[in-house]
């Protein structure tokens, strides 16, 4: 049952992307898109685990939309921060790799978290091991795991926990 639902999710996701790609809506495109999406949904067996874990409730979706704004804000903030460091006369950086802990267990949630960390300038997810992520940080302000987690992960995790779990 869960696998069937996951397949349906893949299908719906692909059809949505197809309709956006071929924007002026027409019946021809809808039919072709439905056929192609169905074929690919049947074909991509390997993608079922990640789609089976997705949440589709209204709460997950509203928090997902909210996350777009939160992430955008963090993106701008860290861009400004890194730009400031680059332009500063003394270049105040303290690069290093720190260990952080995440509560997220779903694959897609961990993927979203790792990519959110990487996409914001100043931090890059280097490796994952179980509940720990290793993050390259432009300014190592803290070394112990609670503080690094608080600094890097918590702002994203709050939302991702609700969206993906």
């Amino acid at each position, binding site marked *: 049952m869960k696998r069937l639902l996951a397949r349906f999710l*893949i299908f719906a*996701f*692909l059809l949505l*992307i*197809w309709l956006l*790609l*071929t924007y002026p809506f*027409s019946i*021809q*495109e809808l039919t*072709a898109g439905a056929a*192609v*999406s169905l074929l*690919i*949904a049947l*074909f*991509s067996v*390997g*993608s079922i*685990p*990640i*789609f089976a874990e997705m949440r589709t409730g209204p709460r997950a979706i509203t928090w997902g939309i909210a996350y777009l704004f939160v992430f955008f804000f963090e993106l701008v903030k860290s861009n400004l921060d890194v730009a400031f460091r680059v332009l500063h006369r003394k270049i105040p950086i303290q690069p290093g790799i720190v260990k952080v802990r995440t509560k997220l267990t779903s*694959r*897609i949630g*961990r*993927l979203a978290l*790792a*990519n959110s960390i990487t996409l914001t300038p100043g931090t890059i*997810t280097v*490796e*994952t091991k179980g509940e720990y992520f290793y993050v390259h940080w432009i300014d190592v302000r803290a070394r112990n795991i609670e503080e690094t987690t608080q600094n890097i992960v918590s702002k994203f995790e709050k939302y991702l926990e609700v969206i993906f779990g």
Partner: protein
Amino acid sequence: MIKKFFTIITVLLFALMVLPLLRQIAPFEELAPVAAAYAEQGPDQLGAANLVTSVIVTYRGLDTLGEVTVLFIATAGVGFLLRRDEEDQLPGDGVPRETPREASELLGSGSMLLFPLLMLFGVYIFLHGHLTPGGGFQGGVVIASAMLLLMLARVSFHLNHLIISLVESLSGFFYVAIGVLGLILAAGFLDNRILPLGEFGTLLSAGAIPIIYSLVGLKVGTELTNVLGTMRLTRTQQEEDV
């Protein structure tokens, strides 16, 4: 010193060689006669919104068939030179088999998420070859890249060579069959007017062009996937030999 002198002489000689060409450069005021004919008649005659595609698939369709053949021969060459039988890989030849390292978790989840999307995008490109930039070759390459992602992300991933060869052969066969149909039903080999031209600019337009381009896309995609699969097999083999 003498070396520098010769360098300068060579450069000057080159300049002398290119100079006449330089003087002949003039901005194109109008299209060459053939190009002008394509540009004027193309949309009405073949009904494809993308003029480049009507040239590639119909006016110069035979050349495209040749290109597909070139690609096929290249694939066959790669297969012939690099493939070893999968039995060679089985343990028992005295060399302890080292299992390849698993891909990272993020690459694995990323590939799961992206694979269907990449496939969809590849199909979109070749299905809309007569409307938007792109076509069979580009779409096929995108599909092959989706398969490459799977190969990178999953150590245990095995290509089903039977299905791939079947799709490849069938699409090649139908490509030629449609070409011959054009010879019988319309003006010539690979003529797209064996099907109604439809309404200009919609998905179901330009006669047989979408079908031909889809077949080309499937063929290119499976061929390149085959090349990647062959190279991957050889790569792991070599690593094990070391």
